[in-house]
């Protein structure tokens, strides 16, 4: 437990020192959202219609892009090696890294999302659904994505590959995440949707760390 907290503290400190790591995914999120009115139409009725989908796809891509560098630095400077030769568990490290990754990506994206929802004319009653679905859905994205990041960290050209590996696995989260917002727009109860997103989170929280640790172990052994 101490080690988990120490990992999170260290990761957050590192992110705070290289602030671009925090800002880049957020900026990406905003810019992608800004592309749609330009590409589709600035009309409120059109944008409001596609807003749930766009917001979720953009949040998903922002998470995915930030995942690419999740283990890269640690792999290159030998930090991962040091953890492998220490008596500390790689499993706890993986969990800690994912939690801190979520705090600086998904969590902040969720906090930023109401603003973008308003820019896309998302009805105010759906804002709650948007924030809560992102809060419950993005940790799953970080967990699943970290498996892909772990598998590709030792490869020279991992960037494109990680999207290829991870995007198909993201689809259930996307379906229910965007579905939550859609239901919010229509004024339907969203409890059921959130329960499913929560169930996915619990499942991935139980299984993904093992896969992440196994992937890292195999990448370090080369």
């Amino acid at each position: 437990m101490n080690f988990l907290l120490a990992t999170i503290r260290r990761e957050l400190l590192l992110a705070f020192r290289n602030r671009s790591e925090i800002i880049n995914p957020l900026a990406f999120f905003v810019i992608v959202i800004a592309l749609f009115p330009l590409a589709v139409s600035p009309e409120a009725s059109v944008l409001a219609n596609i807003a749930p989908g766009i917001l979720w796809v953009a949040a998903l891509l922002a998470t995915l892009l930030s995942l690419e560098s999740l283990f890269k630095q640690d792999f290159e400077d030998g930090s991962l090696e040091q953890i492998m030769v220490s008596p500390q568990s790689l499993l706890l490290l993986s969990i800690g890294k994912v939690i801190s990754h979520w705090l600086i990506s998904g969590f902040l994206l969720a906090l930023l999302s109401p603003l973008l929802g308003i820019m896309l004319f998302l009805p105010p009653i759906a804002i709650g659904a948007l924030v809560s679905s992102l809060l419950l859905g993005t940790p799953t994205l970080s967990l699943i994505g970290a498996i892909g990041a772990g598998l590709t960290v030792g490869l020279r050209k991992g960037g494109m590959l990680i999207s290829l590996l991870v995007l198909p696995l993201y689809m259930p989260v996307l379906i229910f995440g965007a579905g939550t917002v859609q239901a919010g727009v229509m004024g339907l109860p969203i409890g059921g949707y959130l329960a499913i997103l929560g169930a996915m989170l619990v499942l991935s929280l139980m299984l993904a760390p093992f896969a992440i640790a196994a992937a890292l172990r195999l990448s370090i052994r080369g």
Partner: protein
Amino acid sequence: MLSVLNLACERDNRMLFNQLNFSLAVGEILQIEGQNGSGKTSLLRILCGLATSFEGEIHWQDLNVQDKLSTYLASILYVGHHPGIKSSLTAEENLRWMQQLHPHLNKGSISEALQKVGLYGYEDVPCYALSAGQQRRVGLARLYLSNHPLWILDEPFTALDKRGVMEKEQLIVEHATQGGCVILTTHHDFELPDQRLRKINLDQ
């Protein structure tokens, strides 16, 4: 303390070494020699459990390492080519993280260790602002904190100046006289007055 039986390692369809047998007693320093690509780093990585594609057995205090990996890992300290130093953290923060990883890094205080490697006054400077030699010394500062019985060091003297090398040599000998073991690779001629030093050449 450490004994290696019939170790063989193959990489990319090439036999790096075969039938490698040696044992290391308390207070001994083992220098592994060989040309580039002879498998020195691979051997060290096998010895600290980072590589698993090998045949043969490694015993630590008469127990097979693979059965008792966590106790073994608790008693070794490995410093590789990349010592795991974050350039955006300060020397002190880096060493504090090392202490989180290795509970046996508890000899003396961090500031003493930094003083010994000549980084007194640099505690709160992020590592990217240090020179290559200074960064290397941050990586090696953990040796002054270590209570680990076995040190495994891959080219510990690169990028160090003459004085730094001398100090590290002294430190290694001191570790051995206090009952520790050291396994290292280096191109540097490592002359020791006493009988502690043993050499293995992987080219033969």
